[in-house]
């Protein structure tokens, strides 16, 4: 239900004076099936603030949008009156190469950031797992890829952030230096918050030098225990992998791929060592295998169910085994891929999988992940599946999270209902 009703006109004119670019929403602007009334495209942080103040004055429910590539992630919002589209905040504001930092607006495609910093032989060590993804969307969904084994995720790279709160107040935290412990680290709260706490408008990241050389060593496996043994061989050695990926497509044999980066002489030696660790079937290649840094659902037809499983490293075999047997028992199939060396795997179930079958897989896999100190989240799913499964599963400290949400967004106007526990 929309709060708009009769005063859509008033809301529109308030928004229009806040930011020149306001339009009626079309079907293409629907947020996971929820139709908003308006789309505003502010072009600066102050404009975002004005827009959110106007939205607050008119009680509008707001959903922030980067390029809309992951807008179906999370639960559908309970209501969405206004989409705040950040695609006009698309500038790389500053690249201080000597300080290894970059500052970008939230709507900037990650690819643009990478292009800018690459000119100085640097990179933002966040994998663009989905084409077109923006800085803000990547932060809000805490998207990550293979390089998390080597350098971590957004939480390890974000050093400063500018947000606009639901009430239109602009706030900054962190700063432009890598080392800084002044004040609360609000950036951490925003990462993975799915647009429910505040709208990100600018972000500062630390950068890493681009490696001179890279090589990927890949070895096949056919049993989950074998996958775990291979991963442990590598992480327990001293080869300093940048990525340790596990790929186990439905039905087929699996592979473990290890990315080694650094200077040529070093990578060569570590490649040889890694081949030994991974056994006689291991092969080295200058390029990563197909599907690298892509989610397992990326190439399937329709809207597959997208799962994210996390676990302590020693749980890898059990997670792999349970996923496959649970899918088979439920009469469906699951593609698995992810950072086996970090305790993260993504799973894809076919778009036409029966909702009950998906629910059964989710339940069994969740139990195993939880026992292994992790969790299972349903990132995305077709509507009938989304309705039948518990998206987030049990979340510890939910009450404390609710209190945080209440303080930041007491009127529940930012993407209400998208997040854990209906936040």
């Amino acid at each position, binding site marked *: 239900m929309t709060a708009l009703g009769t005063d859509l006109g008033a809301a529109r004119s308030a928004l229009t004076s806040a930011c020149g670019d306001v339009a009626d929403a079309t079907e293409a602007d629907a947020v996971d099936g929820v139709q908003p009334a308006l789309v505003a495209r502010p072009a600066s942080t102050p404009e975002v603030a004005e827009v959110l103040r106007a939205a607050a004055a008119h009680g509008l429910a707001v959903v922030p949008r980067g390029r809309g590539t992951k807008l179906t992630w999370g639960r559908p919002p309970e209501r969405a009156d206004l989409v705040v589209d950040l695609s006009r905040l698309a500038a790389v504001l500053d690249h201080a190469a000597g*300080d*290894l930092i970059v500052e970008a607006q939230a709507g900037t495609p990650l690819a643009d950031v990478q292009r800018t910093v690459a000119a100085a032989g640097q990179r933002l060590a966040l994998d663009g797992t989905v084409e077109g993804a923006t800085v803000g969307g990547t932060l809000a969904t805490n998207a990550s890829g293979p390089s998390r084994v080597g350098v971590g*995720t957004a*939480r*390890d790279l974000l050093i400063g952030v500018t947000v606009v*709160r639901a009430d239109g107040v*602009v*706030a900054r*935290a962190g*700063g*432009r*230096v*890598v*080392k*800084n*412990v*002044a*004040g*609360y680290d609000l*950036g*951490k*709260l925003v*990462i993975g918050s799915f647009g429910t706490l505040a709208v990100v408008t600018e972000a500062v990241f630390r950068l*890493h*030098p681009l490696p*001179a050389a890279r090589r990927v060593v890949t070895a096949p496996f056919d049993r989950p225990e074998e996958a775990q043994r291979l991963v442990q061989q590598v992480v327990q050695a*001293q080869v*300093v992998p940048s990525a340790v990926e596990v790929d186990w497509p439905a039905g087929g044999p699996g592979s473990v791929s290890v990315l080694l980066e*650094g*200077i040529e*002489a*070093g990578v060569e030696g*570590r490649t040889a060592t890694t081949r030994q660790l991974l056994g006689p079937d291991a092969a080295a290649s200058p390029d990563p295998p197909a599907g690298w840094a892509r989610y397992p659902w990326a190439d399937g037809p329709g809207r597959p169910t997208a799962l*994210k499983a*996390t*676990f*302590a*490293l*020693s749980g890898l075999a059990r997670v792999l085994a349970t996923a496959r047997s649970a899918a088979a028992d439920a009469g469906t199939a699951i593609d698995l891929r992810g950072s086996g060396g970090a*305790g*993260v795997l993504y799973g894809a179930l076919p778009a036409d999988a029966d909702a009950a079958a998906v629910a059964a897989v989710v339940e069994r896999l969740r139990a195993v992940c939880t026992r292994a*100190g*992790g*969790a299972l*989240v349903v990132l995305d799913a077709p509507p009938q599946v989304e309705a039948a499964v518990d998206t*987030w*599963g049990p979340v*510890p*400290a939910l*009450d*404390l999270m609710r*209190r*945080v*949400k209440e*303080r930041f967004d*007491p*009127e529940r106007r930012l993407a209400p209902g998208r*997040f*854990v*526990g209906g936040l």
Partner: protein
Amino acid sequence: MGGTHGTETTAGPVLGPVSPEETGATGEAGGNPEAMAAVTRAVRAVLPANAVVSDRIELRTYECDGLAHYRVTPALVVLPQTTEQLAAVVRACAEHGVPFVARGSGTGLSGGALPRADGVLVVTSRMRTIHEIRPADQRAVVDPGVLNLDVTHAATPTGYYYAPDPSSQQICSIGGNLAENSGGAHCLKYGFTTNHVLGAEFVTPQGEVVQLGGLAPDAPGYDLLGAVVGSEGTLGIATRAVVKLTRLPQEVRTLLAGFASTDDAGAATSAIIGAGIVPAAIEMMDALAIEAAEAATHCDYPAGAGAVLVVELDGPAVEVEHEFAQVERTCREHGAFALRVATDATERALIWKGRKSAFAAVGRISPDYIVQDGVIPRTALPGVLRAIAELSASSGVRVANVFHAGDGNLHPLVLFDDAVEGAGKAAEEVSGAILDLCIGSGGSITGEHGVGIDKAAYMPKMFSDEDLDTMQLVRCAFDPDGIANPGKVFPTPRLCGEVPGKKRGAPHPLVAAGKAEAF
């Protein structure tokens, strides 16, 4: 740990616009006798007799942390042994509106663990169990009072260590590290505490026990742990931590290079980083710091050096060897006139000895000093160092510079003799001016020592009212009654009030009296 730091020699205060005493940040002794008596009764009912300290003389031994200039005698000290006991103490505080302050080893340098005269000091030194070392998962699960270095000692036989290494690592606690988001010389490459804590058991200011994060990464929901790390005990108390263990590197090599000036050493630092090398550490000391270290430890640093760099590389042997040669070359190209290389642990310890003892060593050349902690963008180093030299020259206050050059974290040591009239004040002014330089260059007022009580007054120089208000939203979510380490980190006491939209009743008496802002 044998005095590697100026904790006994007064690490003096930085003058802020308002002194902590005036803000009431540490409370008044005997402020609320009935509440305190009720808490004491409740605490005695759940803790063994020897875990509750209420004797005045004994209480005084807890009056300060590593920043000995500030001293406040707590109303009560408790030393719980279990999470349940600790939570019971906090619940009693919550019920009676009594503030509490967490303390680990009390080595903090910003007065974060300074007691409240009207509150309870909760000391974790009896919670020192290392519960699990899990090499296959690259994790350890430890109590909050466990000493930083003990985690590494426990993990080393399995080929792992705990990467964050504050210089105080022999005595500081994991809980204190978590609360301060502590760094160390090697955080240039490996990151800070926040990058190495995956989970915590946590007691909220209401006394609830909650799990934040866990063994696995990316726990669903808001990253509350990320907000708790670095919150200096103002959001609650960590009673257990899940930390990441890092594989020991194959090779470690350390270089000591002497330069004519800090400008040369700074240029070498920039060139090393600019070449795409990420050393484990790059530390710099200037002539005065070298003089002090030499006097204290006879570390045999190059004679006549205006600056020395300690550069450490670690990782796979081939890379280390290759990049080490590059570092040596770069140092020479930038005027290094003396190079010393350590390839084994003994030689390495010798090089680090001078650096690690630098703070305490300054006691040899000055009766009193202030340890400052500010951050600048690395490229601003030469300019800021020159500005510090000018400040020193114009004020006549000597400043020794020791710092983590790789990430621009300065530790200027501002020297003075408290016996000389006005010297303390002059030193404080220089120390404050250095912070202004850091802020002015786009840096931070603290890189690792925290805000505590010492720098709360500086927060408005770095953050706007809106920024601070927004941080306060987090505070209010966790601690609406403001009993968790109140008076630290934030300059003005603020009351949380009801969640907006649910406001009711008359204003709080403090608001009515204009002593606090409602929030």
